[in-house]
């Protein structure tokens, strides 16, 4: 399992990522008890997945629409947003939409090509857990959360922009 930082500490990673092209039976056969399925599988087999003995989380690729999860956010313990390549910034918006527009309160996880130097921004967009590639030293990556002492904008983490606080 890749290393995980959750709520600012290095944590055990217990969720199994089920790839996009996996079908329902394959997904349910996964030996893990907690599985993250792609939104397309979730939308197609919501009932079957719910009826299985597994804990189900959903992951969104960068070209998926977070608004499509509008009716589900209350039921999901974890939603992951994928960064297929670090340059693809769409998942910053999907993360913010899940928190701001759909009031998702569960774990919001960044997966894929997550760079240490993006984690500060990700956190501001409401992401609270980070799956790190082997190349990243999780201990060192923790420092990313203090890259900046403050920010100007209204963000998921601090809805009041600096001009309302200065």
């Amino acid at each position, binding site marked *: 399992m890749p290393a995980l930082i959750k709520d600012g500490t290095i944590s055990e990673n217990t969720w199994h990522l089920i790839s996009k092209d996996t079908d329902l039976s394959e997904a349910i056969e996964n030996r893990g008890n907690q599985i993250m399925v792609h939104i397309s599988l979730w939308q197609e087999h919501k009932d079957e997945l719910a009826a299985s003995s597994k804990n189900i989380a959903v992951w969104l690729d960068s070209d998926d*629409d977070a608004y499509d999860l509008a009716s589900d956010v209350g039921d999901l313990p974890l939603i992951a947003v994928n960064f297929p390549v*670090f*340059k*693809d*910034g*769409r998942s*910053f*918006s*999907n993360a*913010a*939409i899940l928190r*701001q*527009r759909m009031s998702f309160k569960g774990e919001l996880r960044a997966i894929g090509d997550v*760079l240490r*130097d*993006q984690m*500060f*921004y*990700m956190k*501001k*967009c409401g992401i609270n857990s980070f799956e790190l590639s082997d190349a990243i030293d999780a201990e060192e990556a923790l420092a990313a959360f203090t*890259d*900046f*002492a*403050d*920010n*100007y*904008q*209204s*963000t998921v983490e601090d*809805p*009041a*922009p*600096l*001009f*309302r606080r*200065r």
Partner: protein
Amino acid sequence: MYIYDAYDKQMLEDRITQFRDQTRRFLAGELSEEQFLPLRLQNGLYIQRLAPMLRVAIPYGCLSSVQLRKLASIARDYDKGYAHFSTRQNIQYNWPVLEQVPELLAELADVEMHAIQTSGNCIRNTTTDQFAGVAVGEIEDSRPWCEIIRQWSTFHPEFAYLPRKFKIAVCGTPNDQAATQVHDIGLYIKKNAEGEIGFQVLVGGGLGRTPVIGAQICDFLPWKHLLTYLDAIMRVYNRFGRRDNKYKARIKILVKAIGADAFREKVEAEWQHDKDGQATLTEEEVNRCKGFFADPDYEEHIDKDASVETHAGTDLLFSHWLERNVTNHKKPGYRIVTLCLKETGVATGDLTDGQMDFVANLADKFSFGEVRVTHVQNLVLTDVRLKDLYELFQACKQESLATPYVGLLNDMVCCPGGDFCSLANAKSIPIAESIQRRFEDFERQKNIGDITLNISGCMNACGHHHVGNIGILGVDKKGAEFYQVTLGGSADRQTAIGKVLGPSFAQEDMPDVIEKIIDVYLNNREDGENFLNTYKRIGIEPYKESVYASAD
């Protein structure tokens, strides 16, 4: 000018610490070239043809004399004694050493300057009309609004990895010298019938490979909604802008693909959630920002000064300079003076460290210690007393800064081109110089009158060639450098994209080609008609006939 408080300073310090560590990790091999790329770009650092290039932000073109002196000392200490003012009101150093860049950035921070988001796929330096705050008939000073946008766009966590770069211009002057309509977002400040301030919002303008004039998506956005509306536009772009092809990734392609109406609907739908939310601007914040741009202590009752006319009568160059480089000011007794950085034989927009120090001293002596940078690569002293004009002119003459060309043919815009830039298809500086030499005679330029000539060394259009009355684009033809000419572009409130004249030309033919184009104009113009209006009246055909006739 805006002055940093503890928050602004802290953010800049944090950024330098962060970049110092990123540079260290890159040099230690912990970050790959590819991973370091967006990080260094968002700190203004390109790897160019000969060396790294560092682009330093000059927020909306405003500089203090202290800052300009720092830019001069950096040119001296980290570079080869000069720097280049770009068409985005920024300044570029062509020879810094990567290892020294964090140090250089720390020096910039001492004078509240930085290179943040001057490149990369993020929101770039916001630009505006260089006469903001002093223009006659101004609707509203754009500088406080630019500062509000600067803060909102700096380190915006959601929009640091956009499909492509993103440029915003704000204009509150009647003439628009900011090329507002060819920006990703163009904001015209307006007043409604009740006298309230708002913004006309244009999106999807831009130059580059696909030149487009921005489409209006909001006729009047009340000021307090500025940031929530910008957030909504950015979110729509970040989510739906194309990422599969970098040449189709700008917002203009998205707006064209779905149409301005559909784009507006998406923005409005997104905006409804945040409208009147926490990011809604407060009167307190706007007033705080406006406070930094209050008028300086202008003297009263100095409306008239006989010395100007006396000197103009005896000094021909001064009278030319008065006519071309000096503009009326909102305050009687004051003038706006443009220092033209277009001396023939000097790369357009380049200034030596000595000249920068010199201009800083002029600003202190004559213009309340402030300098503006224009997107046509000149410098401006905004607040010069009428009675100081002659002394200022004489001082400028000694440093080759009194060229009386403003708005004339030789006041051309030119990107660094193939001499420096690794993106360029062709050189642009030698083209500019060969044309300048041909038209060097001032009387000749004066007879031609108001005209804009813009040169870009490649499709990326840093020289804004599409919106020059005459545009020149460097193209690569089987390894040889050729130049395509467009006519009829303009970047003002009646923005137009130039039309291609025809097949491209060899470098050595360019002065002749431009001369023929000018001759067609001179032979066809009617009383008082400028180049652009003659073109609009007679169309492109007569120019084609003349330019291509001899080739048959």
